[in-house]
């Protein structure tokens, strides 16, 4: 919040919009609404959608990038969450997300695959009292599905035990990883599971306010969740005791990092802050804030009801497979089993070479390692577990360059190694010099972005050293 915004608010006028919200509404050119122009510019130059103002964008996410033989001109967007129908632009009509489950009954996709659409009322009304919820979540051992795998119950406890007049629950719907679209699926088709998960958390920790942060790339998800909130408020499941609003992103990958997400919700530049303090101690407005990924929250009502953990994960598979889809699997299922059973094996005429698991900060598995189980332990760094399978038409060098571009384009610029280092990756001419820079990025970067950028590149160096500097 800027001084002027604050001054106006204190002047007794209605709370003005944050800089980001103003800019998303098209302010900023002539009318700066009291902000110094460079304050608005500081925000507008951070987000892709505000920077060039283009509404129609060409997806350059991993799936779309490798589904195209040549680049398409136009403003870029790094993943629209439509990798199953790649390549796309934002102008094309959106096709349905193919989904299935290898676990029966499914947990996260419980309302989405069996055809048995639950009455949303049950998700809310079945929730028990605060202590029971918290005990159930702690006992279940549920871990965040956003990628970090942090124990959910511990986070909630911290928030509850931090003395404060109020608390926040934030749903992280900033699904930035190219190749992942499970959050979009849940937000658009099962929003009440997510909202009920938020309500459970709110009740458990004593929060009266919630935010669903949804990336600008998912306009339909934003509309659906807004409608769902209105419905739940009319039905009395949400209200003054827990007020939820939707906040839109504006095109920034790093905004998905939890501390950066909070800055984006406040309407500023989505730059991560050092931890501690953790958001559960000190987050939005300085209040304890639980930030959970959408997928985790969708699982919460199920976990609370049963008091045990859902050891499943929705994996989004795209690329050189016969049937790209979102598939719920038991954690620990070997990748090849997912590819064969859920996706029908390799796409016609394609031979698997490697898979990028968990997006641009994830892991590269050569085809020979497709037997690796999909679990946080067996495949550290698998993150949100979007799987993009690449055929032997793609060189490891091309994938590396794609990752370099992504890193340089999405670095927020807050810390030195990542700000400067990501832009120097592409010019490294040998393995030693590249490795030295990767070491610097990994050791020195402030957040998981810069620390994670080296991960798939190191895999490429290990498995395809001869292709990288060709």
């Amino acid at each position, binding site marked *: 919040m*800027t*001084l*002027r915004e*604050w*001054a106006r608010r*204190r*002047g*007794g006028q209605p709370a003005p919009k944050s800089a980001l919200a103003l800019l998303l509404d098209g302010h900023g050119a002539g009318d700066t609404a009291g902000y*110094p*122009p*460079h*304050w608005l*510019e*500081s925000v507008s*130059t*951070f987000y892709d959608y505000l920077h060039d103002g283009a509404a129609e964008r060409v997806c350059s996410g991993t799936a779309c990038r490798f589904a195209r033989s040549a680049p398409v001109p136009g403003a870029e967007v790094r993943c629209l969450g439509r990798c199953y129908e790649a390549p796309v632009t934002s102008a094309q009509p959106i096709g349905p997300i193919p989904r299935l489950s290898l676990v029966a009954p499914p947990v996260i996709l419980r309302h989405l695959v069996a055809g048995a659409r639950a009455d949303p009322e049950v998700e809310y009304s079945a929730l028990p009292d605060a202590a029971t919820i918290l005990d159930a979540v702690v006992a279940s051992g549920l871990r965040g599905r956003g990628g970090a795998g942090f124990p959910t119950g511990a986070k909630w406890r911290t928030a509850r035990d931090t003395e404060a007049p109020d608390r926040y629950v934030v749903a992280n719907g900033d699904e930035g990883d190219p190749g992942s679209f499970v959050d979009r699926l849940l937000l658009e088709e099962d929003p009440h599971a997510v909202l009920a998960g938020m309500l459970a958390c709110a009740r458990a920790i004593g929060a009266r306010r919630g935010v669903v942060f949804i990336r600008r790339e998912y306009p339909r998800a934003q509309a659906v969740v807004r409608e769902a909130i209105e419905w739940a408020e009319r039905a009395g499941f949400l209200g003054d005791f827990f007020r939820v609003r939707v906040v839109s992103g504006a095109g*920034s990958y790093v905004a998905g990092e939890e501390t950066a997400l909070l800055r984006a919700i406040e309407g500023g*530049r989505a730059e991560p*802050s*050092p*931890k*501690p303090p953790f958001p559960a101690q000190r987050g939005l407005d300085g209040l304890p804030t639980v930030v959970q990924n959408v997928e985790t929250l969708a699982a919460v009502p199920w976990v609370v009801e049963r008091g045990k953990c859902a050891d499943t994960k929705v994996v989004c598979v795209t690329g050189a497979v016969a049937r790209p889809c979102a598939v719920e699997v038991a954690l620990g299922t070997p990748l090849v089993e997912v590819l064969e059973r859920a996706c029908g094996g390799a796409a016609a005429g394609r031979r698997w070479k490697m898979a990028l698991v968990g997006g641009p900060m994830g892991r590269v598995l050569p085809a020979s390692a497709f037997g690796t189980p999909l679990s946080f332990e067996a495949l550290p760094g698998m993150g949100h577990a979007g799987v993009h399978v690449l055929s032997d038409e793609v060189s490891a060098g091309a994938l590396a360059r794609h990752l370099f571009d992504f890193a*340089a*384009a*999405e*670095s*927020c*610029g*807050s*810390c*030195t*190694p990542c*700000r*400067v*280092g*990501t*832009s*120097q990756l592409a*010019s490294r001419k040998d393995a030693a010099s590249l490795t*030295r*820079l990767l*070491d*610097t990025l990994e*050791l*020195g*970067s*402030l957040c998981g972005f810069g620390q994670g950028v080296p991960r798939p590149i190191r895999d490429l160096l290990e498995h395809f050293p001869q292709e990288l500097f060709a």
Partner: protein
Amino acid sequence: MIYIDGQETTAEGSVLDACRRVGASVPAFCHDERLGPGGHCRACLVDVGGRVVPACTTPARDGQHVTTHSQQLAAYRLDLAELMLAESRPGGRVGQTLSALGASGDRYAALVSEPKQDASHPYLRLDLQRCIKCRLCERVCADLQGQFVFATLGRGAQAHIDWGKQAFADSDCVSCGACAAACPTGAITDIDRLRAETRAEERVVQSTCSYCGVGCQLEVHVAGDDVVRIEGASSPVNHGQLCVKGRYAHAFARHPERLTTPLLRKAGKLMPVGWPEVLAYVATELTRLRGRVAALSSSRCTNEENYLVQKWFRAGLGSHDIDCCARVCHAPSAAGMRRSLGTGAATNSLADIELADLFLVCGSNTTVSHPVTGARIKQAVLSGAKLLVVDPRRTELAELADVHLQLRPGTNVLLFNALAAVLVEEGLVDRDFIAARTDGFEEYAKFIASQRPELTEHLTGIRAEVVRKAARLYGRAARPMQVHGLGMTEHYQGSEGVMLLCNLALLVGAIGREGVGVNPLRGQNNVQGAADMGCQPDLLTGYADPDDKAVIERFTSVWGRPLPVQRGRTLPKIYQGIRDGSVAGMFILGEDVVQTDPDANRVRADLASLELLVVQEIFLSETARLAHVVLPGASFLEKDGTFTNGERRIQRVRKALEPPGQARADWQILCDLMAVTGYPQHFSQPAQIMDEIALLAPQFAGVSYARLEADGLQWPVPSLDHPGTPMLHRDAFPQGRAKLMRVEYVPSPSLASSGASLLLVTGRALEHYNSGSMTRRSKNSELLPEDRLQIHPDDAARHGIHDGDRVVVKSAFGEAVGVAELGDEVAPGTLFMTFHFPESGANNVTTDVVDRLADCPEYKLTPVEIRRAG
């Protein structure tokens, strides 16, 4: 305990703090101990128990083993340094560190960008080619100064600092210099720092700023006999922060117009003479005029000098006719607070600002007149404290206020009674406190019932519901802290207005605990001290009563002379004395009354009619031009002594330079004057003078120079083992109980007699200090080259005045000229003008009305007419 390379230290703060404590060299570029860790530069990585982590963001924990140097860390630091050189060409300590790490700049290709450069500001210089994006400028500007000049634009490798499209001089910058002080690369620097690069600094002298009464601690960097630069020292008063005056306006010290020899009027002209001749002349004349001499001492000078002036006049020349400029600023605060509470000084400390949850700021444009304190209040309010501002002007703080009580000038008494009436009526009072510690509540409650805001809103111009809202906020706050300025005191009912402030604090029990109180923001650097030392006619050193037998005995025995019997006169009465012939000679130390006292034409005429006017000064001021004798004194940079700030903190002033030419330290001149007029003193250094003060004034009994070395002491300091008193009235008031005062509103004679439609308020601008004799002789004059007249656009339109026009302001007393500045900072019907430039003559128009109790002039209310200058 935490172990840094094997060295043991306590596990407090961050690992970086621990490293610094044991002296381990860990590079860190974005760290400032006044701010939380930024974590931007990533240079401070260390090995903690086998994990490489940033030292600044890692909390120190017991049992940690930290390694600051290893092969891995060396390789990392070198690579990071090379990356930094790919995006910048840093100078300063970053540049040195990168060189020391062995970075060459050829490992990575330079990023293509066109960093901005700017030299539009008189002091600050920006060259962003040097910037490593550590964000310290952005953070100190926002989080310490509250000014929000800088912002980071762009993402990733394009991220960079910016201040907007305008030239830097046209930005919101208030020239406090905090960014230049914090910048580790020289990307933001100032002309003083650039000069420091070419001159070897020889020594650093810690001293006390001589501008306003905040009392900021300075580090004066000296080369040869010149100040190279001034930095803010770490101190509970200013935490390293300074303002545009304290940091930058020091060029006056070596200005060619400095007085370097004594001057004696011969054949109508002031001629340079030697010290023996001038001292002999003064001795003869003062002896001749004995019984008809008066003195005005200087709040700009040290405690020791003020003490000497009053000692000289009282014991040496036999006159209580001694006053100081507290008369024209906070004498009503002292008088009012003494009557209500028993002590006429701030009840609390600046450190209480961070503890308060509500501020009641009355008649103080704090961010302009006391910038470092103002910024501190601003930060407290940004962090959630509530803010009420009473001011006829929409000041910067008023703009941030929860309630701005924009009253008509001259209606303070009505407004503060109305606030109190609401507190009593709505039961928002602390009955226990009132019962235990005050007298007269029952009568007071009856009286105040007649002062409800509904009855006076037509006079104050503030709707009753707004007054009620403010009163409720004040009454419900847990720790409401008052600060007030000259908008309270410089009024016909100034002292009484201050009593009403005391009433408010007493009603809610906001006295004698932390984060509350009644706190006058003293105007001049040592106006508190000048009054403490006894430079007022009715009170001796330490506010001792000259009618008290024990006091007379004590002073007579130390001074070795009898005290005068005849009562002394305040400054306005001394001027009257000149007119009625009872004053024929005057000694004025470091005050330019012709420019700063009201009704300046009369002041000029009065002084011109004296048989002897001796002015001790550093420049030939408007007043000095009228003198028969001008004695060249020393600036605060050129002598030792002490100043006492507005929170009663006695702080050391330390000599950094020699006085120019034959100029001498004022205390030495005073000793000579005392000697030649038959009252020789034995002092060879100011510390001895302080020892004598400690002997006489119980509040100073425990004060000695040795004890002032660190952060000074806040009086009262009753004994040598007493730690000083940050807060007054904790358990009791000096007279036992405090008084709730019943004050009826009496309109100023100016309001009663005049038909003028416009009311003029005078005051200060940020860039200049009072008469401007020092700040005008610095580049601050480029920042603000003239006195401005703020006028509401409606009034301007009615008089055909446009922005930038020269405007004649006319009162019953005279005419002044100001440059029109149109805006809604003033309400229609109100004008505001500064008085920093002699050529504008602002005080030609101010009136002869003075405070009913303390004789302080009513600067804040002058009925005037205006017209565009022809």
